[in-house]
């Protein structure tokens, strides 16, 4: 049994890596074929995707809602900006991202410890206050953090070997915008592989167990607080990476980037895509990046002024967010998958009952494929219960 599980786990890792490789090929092909402007947009999509990926793990798998991820991104971004003040800084970008992640992780641990005691509206309210409070810190410590003007981020020159390598593979010179897009999407792939593995492993099982039924999870010997804090930390780390990529893309860390709107936007992204699904997070990020210009054009064609038309995009997110919660709590990915499963089930046993598509808590994890989760949780229960009751 144990051997089978471990082989399965290897299998999972291998599958994730294969997917990552495939993703990488797609990324290279696309980034090489589009303009500098699109590359910058794609870099924006990547940082939104990374942050949404982290948030979807927290909310979808662990059931904690955070409106403070914008503030956590701010910490990642400011860390990067402090590390890249001028052309002389010789730190490679990978190190900058890592440091940003570590710093945000530490802050995330502190926030997570406080948040683990809260739930539902209390957690939402407290993280909301966090989102509003953090930009003020940058304004107050103006000397170090640059005040309203923020800190400039000076991207180091592209290493020569990267230039050579890219030219060798693609036959094109690497522009700065494209380089940033590469950094962004590589980071996204790494973060998503790590998140996917954590979610599929023992840690992810615990997170889900806590989300689904606290009492049962506690009986099963899961330390509720620890599970919650660890989920928050992982999620914060992703937000830190996203903040670093934001700093690289915008070349600025300023309070105005980390408004309440950013935090709400991230929430919109994961709700649109479907809570708990990384693919959903990516779809959400894509919608947030590319929908505005489409909607704004429609608005101006319909006779609205530019400024009015610019407000149509948030209107659409908001409406879709409300509609998703009311009509299809599983989001886009979850609903599609649910429809697929139902269709398959119908083909196999035309008379059998359909799996429930709505009505459970919120995550796609439970709504569309209940068997996977329940058996996993049940499987771990006997082994850990005795330990739990003994302590």
């Amino acid at each position: 049994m144990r051997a089978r599980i471990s082989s399965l786990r290897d299998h999972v890792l291998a599958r994730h890596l294969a997917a990552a490789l495939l993703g990488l090929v797609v990324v290279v092909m696309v980034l090489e074929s589009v303009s500098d402007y699109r590359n910058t947009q794609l870099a924006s999509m990547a940082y939104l995707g990374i942050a949404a990926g982290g948030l979807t793990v927290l909310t979808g798998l662990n059931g904690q809602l955070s409106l403070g991820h914008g503030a956590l991104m701010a910490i990642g971004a400011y860390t990067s900006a402090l590390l890249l003040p001028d052309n002389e800084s010789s730190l490679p970008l990978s190190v900058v991202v890592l440091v940003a992640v570590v710093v945000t992780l530490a802050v995330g641990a502190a926030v997570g410890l406080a948040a683990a005691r809260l739930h539902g509206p209390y957690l939402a309210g407290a993280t909301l206050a966090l989102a509003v409070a953090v930009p003020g810190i940058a304004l107050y410590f103006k000397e170090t953090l640059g005040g309203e003007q923020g800190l400039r981020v000076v991207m180091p020159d592209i290493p020569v070997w990267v230039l050579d390598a890219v030219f060798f593979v693609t036959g094109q010179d690497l522009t700065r915008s494209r380089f940033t897009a590469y950094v962004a999407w590589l980071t996204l792939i790494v973060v998503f592989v790590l998140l996917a593995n954590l979610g599929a492993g023992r840690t992810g099982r615990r997170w889900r167990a806590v989300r689904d039924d606290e009492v049962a999870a506690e009986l099963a010997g899961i330390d509720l607080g620890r599970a919650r804090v660890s989920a928050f930390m992982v999620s914060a780390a992703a937000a830190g990476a996203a903040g670093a990529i934001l700093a690289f893309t915008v070349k600025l860390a300023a309070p105005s980037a980390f408004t309440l709107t950013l935090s709400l936007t991230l929430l919109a992204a994961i709700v649109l895509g479907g809570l708990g699904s990384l693919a959903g997070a990516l779809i959400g990020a894509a919608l947030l990046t590319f929908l505005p210009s489409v909607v704004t054009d429609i608005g101006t064609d319909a006779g609205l002024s530019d400024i009015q038309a610019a407000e149509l995009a948030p209107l659409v997110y908001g409406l879709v967010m409300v509609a998703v919660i009311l009509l299809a709590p599983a989001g886009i990915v979850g609903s599609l998958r649910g429809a697929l499963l139902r269709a398959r089930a119908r083909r196999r046993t035309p008379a059998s009952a359909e799996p429930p598509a709505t009505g459970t808590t919120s995550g796609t994890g439970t709504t569309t494929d209940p068997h996977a989760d329940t058996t996993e949780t049940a499987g771990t229960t006997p082994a850990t219960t005795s330990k739990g009751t003994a302590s």
Partner: protein
Amino acid sequence: MTRHIRGTGPLVATLAAALALTACGAGGRDSSDGEAAAADPGVTEDTVTIGGTFPLTGVAAPGYSEIPTGAQAYFDFVNEQGGVHGRQIDYIVKDDGYNPTNTSTVTNELVLKEEVFATVGSLGTPTQASVADYLNDEGVPQLMVSSGSLQWGDDVENRPMTFGWQPDYEIEGKIIGQWVAENMPDAKVGLFLQDDDLGEDAEKGVRQFVDDQIVAVERYTSGNTDVAPQISGLQAAKADLVLAFNTPSYTALSQLVALKTGYKPKWFYANIGSDPALVGSLLERFSEGAVAGSSSALDGVLTTEYIPGIDSPEDPWVQLWQKVWDEHGEGGELTNYRIYGMSQAYAFVQALEAAGEDLTREGLVEAIEEQGADWEGPQLAPFRYSADSHMGIAGVRVVELKGGKGEDLTDVLVTDIGEDAEITTDDSGQADDAPPESGVPTS
């Protein structure tokens, strides 16, 4: 059984779909335009495309959002007369909501998507600071920034493509400081400052003359509309002359709070925050008449001027602006902010003229450096443009507002940044010149 964050399959599919979609949308944009390979972006035989970012929404929008409408009207006026060297000026305006992060995004759009030749008149200190290095790296001229921060002109070596336009806050602070030291030597001075370059540069200038008269310094954060604590602080220190360096909304807010707490010092608002029409219209309706109507709302307030405004309708420049606005304006009244935009646009047209028929970015910058200091125009004092300095207009004059009009208290005073530069009376005759017959500058 093992698929928890399920998603690898759909994930890759999504990724591919999303990326492929954007790829389609971008078809061919990045392949270099064969025919225009030699010319700089944004320039063709018969057009030059320029851009600008302004707060069309948000707390900074009142007033400032009118600046690009003025510039647009003047460009239309010039285009109608055949443009400059046969080129029509195409002006693309983007909204950044006075949010530096947005500025970065929309400037990126201007440079990479719209492929502008230069940015002209883009507004705001924190906003333009966020893109100054980017624009210089890309070699895009950042012309006539609508802000009085020193950074647009005092570092030519690192920012060769950036030029200021209006008088910087330091020289304005110096001229105000000297005037106070000479005319109100016993005043207890309180400073009310926006907490960024605006406040900092101005304080530097003011302190050169009235350092020992200052009894309180209060700073507010742009965006926080509650200034009661700051005004209370000035009142507590018993300041009887407040030198305020703030944006127009905060002039209204500070007046309102002072009313509430019964604080009645002499107010000296820097030019940037003192437009009587705008502040008056903001103040007027707060109280259904408790505050006097628009034109006299700021009666007795001291401020400075560096271009003629709507309060002097007999000025030949203002008459030109009125004509331009009547013919090409998008509706509404001619305001001081629209005049500001037109005055800037006038200077940009001078630069285009000076750069000659073969328009390049380098050529334009050189032309401004070589000839800019001699340009006649609506500005009361000359520009300081040279190969070593990209600072804008060299001086201001002090006025007192009466019934919405500025009454001159001094001649036009000019100076430069730094403690060594003395303040002198301007002798260039700039304040008395008139526009050419056609209304379009000729080189």
